[in-house]
């Protein structure tokens, strides 16, 4: 590349210049190969960041969690894991060398752009209006033809084509200088500025982007920032809605939110997956939905105070077999989808069961049993006692059997939302007191509640009636409550306030988004102007015999064809002499 300097001097002078760190830096940053190298490096790093698993956001910053995550990666990458972690390959877009490379590219583009500004600015504002006659023979784009008889009309032809024309006469030779849309040359700086803005957007996102996810129960609130922050806001979930097809496919999730700031409610809005709420640059996205929450309250009857109030997420499931028991005469003694409340498990099997008292005095232990490593839940029905014809059957789903004068049918297996809840308060006069882990199961549920969602039973079709919450472990016999119902146990009152839904709300703020849009707009504008604005610069030498045209134009322009058209417009006789063809 040409370099406007006086380096073509003595060797020592060049050497002295080369030792100038500023000059050396400038040479490096204005070198196109250097820029291409940086871009290629970043592209390769980005590819690595896409292909290699990256540290999840939730784990980043937590040394213990990161260590566990790396142990998992060791199963895939083996002995390479340590080295890859040291190089930052598991967190490419946040590692120092990637950020530095982005920063260096930004500075390089800025220095390179600044170094090219003077010649381009001079070209735009102080063009060479009078060129050497030799230029008409050497120009990349040139054309000549026989000057038509009479006064040359080339000037008017050029003006009609929106050229600004200047004229110079030297004897019987007329020189013209014509140009149009020369400011379009500056579009290259717009494109370079776009690159800087887009790179800046990446850095802005890296350093000031914010993202935090919350899972909030209806009626509850959560902080946008962990712990405290001068900009702290709370998000309260007023209503979570999930809509499903009859076969359980999700159609839409939405959440009605109240946003608080400085202790005051500042906004109410509804957010959906595709249309987030916005407040002061923060976007509140609908990210998740979960329909099986139970609002449970425990009150101390002595003081009247609440000692426990939580909306519990019943994220697990327990098997609920549909069992029918008939007597010898065919009368139905039991027909129920059974909520199982007794839990037994060891290394060999898992068992959930319940004692059932049949009309007529017989008692059965009915349960679902699964062997370790197996998927099948088998129904086990046992009758305690010493009867010779006691019921002892084990059935697979869909089977039935007759024993002890009873027909037992295992119609099908369903599932209910359930969860073991640690630290659940026990009645103060219970043998253990304090708190312990209890089992909560919620049967008769649909996605959503009848008052909040257009829910539809997913599997199976729910029985008529509201959901029922079974609490196992606060007293010898399980508590089963419908919404609004209360039960007393040992000085505490346990109530099932109702089924509640959860919404996952992702709060994001990224000023880089706006910069990306700006950068994209600038890039588009710069490219459009560079490639589509028909800027031209033309010199003409007109003698009585010949007219010579020479000039230059933007990219991808067949300037000779335009020159030939100008010649024909003027009425000149076009011969076969052309300059070098422009690009097609």
């Amino acid at each position, binding site marked *: 590349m040409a370099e406007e300097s006086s380096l073509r001097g003595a060797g020592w002078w060049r050497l002295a210049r080369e030792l100038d760190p500023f000059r050396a830096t400038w040479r490096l940053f204005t070198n196109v190969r250097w820029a291409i190298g940086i871009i290629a490096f970043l592209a390769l790093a980005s590819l690595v960041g896409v292909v290699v698993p990256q540290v999840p956001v939730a784990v980043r910053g937590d040394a213990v969690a990161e260590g566990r995550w790396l142990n998992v990666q060791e199963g895939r990458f083996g002995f390479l894991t340590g080295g890859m972690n040291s190089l930052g390959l598991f967190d490419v877009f946040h590692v120092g060398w990637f950020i530095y490379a982005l920063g260096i590219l930004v500075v390089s583009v800025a*220095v390179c752009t600044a170094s090219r500004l003077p010649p381009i600015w001079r070209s735009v504002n102080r063009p060479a209006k009078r060129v050497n006659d030799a230029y008409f023979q050497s120009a990349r784009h040139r054309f000549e033809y026989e000057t038509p008889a009479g006064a040359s009309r080339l000037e008017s032809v050029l003006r009609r084509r929106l050229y600004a024309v200047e*004229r110079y006469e030297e004897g019987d030779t007329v020189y013209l200088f014509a140009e149009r849309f020369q400011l379009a040359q500056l579009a290259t700086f717009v494109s370079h500025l776009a690159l800087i803005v887009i790179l800046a957007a990446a850095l*802005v996102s890296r350093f000031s982007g914010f993202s935090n996810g919350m899972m909030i129960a209806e009626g509850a609130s959560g902080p946008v920032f962990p712990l405290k922050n001068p900009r702290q806001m709370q998000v309260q979930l007023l209503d979570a809605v999930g809509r499903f097809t009859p076969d359980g496919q999700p159609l839409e999730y939405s959440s009605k939110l109240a946003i608080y*700031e400085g*202790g005051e409610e500042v906004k109410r809005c509804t957010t959906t997956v595709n249309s987030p709420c916005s407040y002061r640059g923060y976007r509140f996205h609908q990210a998740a939905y979960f329909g099986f929450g139970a609002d449970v309250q425990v009150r101390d009857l002595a003081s*009247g105070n609440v000692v426990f109030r939580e909306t519990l997420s019943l994220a697990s499931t327990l098997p609920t077999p549909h069992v029918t028991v008939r007597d010898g005469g065919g009368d139905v003694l039991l027909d129920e989808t059974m909520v199982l409340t007794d839990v037994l498990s060891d290394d060999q099997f898992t068992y959930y069961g319940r004692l059932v008292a049949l009309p007529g005095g017989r008692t059965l232990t009915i349960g679902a049993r699964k062997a370790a490593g197996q998927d099948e839940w088998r129904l086990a029905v046992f009758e305690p006692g010493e009867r010779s014809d006691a019921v002892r059957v084990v059935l697979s789903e869909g089977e039935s059997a007759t024993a002890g004068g009873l027909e037992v049918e295992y119609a099908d297996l369903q599932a209910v939302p359930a969860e073991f809840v640690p630290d659940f308060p026990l009645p103060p006069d219970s043998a253990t*007191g304090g708190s312990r882990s209890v089992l909560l199961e919620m049967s008769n549920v649909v996605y959503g509640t009848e008052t909040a969602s257009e829910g539809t039973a997913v599997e199976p079709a729910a029985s008529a009636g509201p959901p029922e919450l079974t609490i196992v472990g606060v007293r010898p016999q399980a508590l089963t409550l419908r919404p609004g119902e209360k039960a007393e146990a040992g000085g505490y009152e346990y109530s099932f306030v109702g089924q509640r839904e959860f919404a996952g709300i992702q709060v994001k703020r990224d000023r880089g988004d706006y910069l990306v849009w700006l950068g994209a707009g600038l890039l588009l504008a710069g490219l459009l102007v560079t490639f589509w604005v028909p800027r031209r610069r033309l010199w003409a030498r007109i003698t009585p015999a010949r007219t010579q045209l020479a000039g230059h134009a933007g990219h991808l322009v067949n300037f000779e064809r335009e020159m030939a058209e100008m010649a024909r417009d003027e009425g000149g006789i076009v011969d076969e002499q052309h300059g070098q063809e422009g690009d097609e």
Partner: protein
Amino acid sequence: MAEDLRATGPVEVDESPQRRRVWRGPWRSVVLPIVAVGAIAGAIWWLDYRPDSGSSPYDARYGPVEMPAALVPPGMAVEAKVGSLAPDFLLATLDGGELRLSDLRGKAVIVNLWATWCAPCRKEMPQFVAAYDRYKDEGLEVVAVNVQESPSIIRPFADDFGMKFPVVLDKRSSVSDSYRLIGLPMTYFIDREGVILSVFQGPFLEQLRGTRVQGAIEEDELTRRIQEILG
């Protein structure tokens, strides 16, 4: 219009000025572009971090305040550390009043930093309610400092859980900062002279199955610390 161009003289044409780079000295070629990039970065940073306008107004009176000199014994430090005087503050209460910590001098005070969204805080609160009911006649006061929540969110919780002690609103978290809050819940036990005798960073011990413990704070531990500040 014709113009005499002879003054410019014929020159060579540079058809590709964008391919040329011009060294104009270290300042204009290197330093100035870097300064320009820095200025753009600074502008973006300022746009991102400038104080937001339109935020909810909040009474500037509330927050940490200077301890009255008469209440500071000579040589006594005022800071959120064991053995020092507890920093004074003035905050609005949930009931619409206001509370100044130094006005409680002469009482044993538990300052509990909490929020309704904090699950361990919710589990602990019944213990403070029970402790207040049990020891208030002996001079115990509990001050529940809520961190940056709205009264409309706090009030239902406070009513349900029977929080009869002052609930104060640290809307700007300035008091939380002065009390070195690093996680919720956090509890300061302050004696009748205003001296911090102990600090408890929650949550407390894990639940001990089969023993008589209630909530997140082991009852014996809470009782011990309360009796320590009651003197």
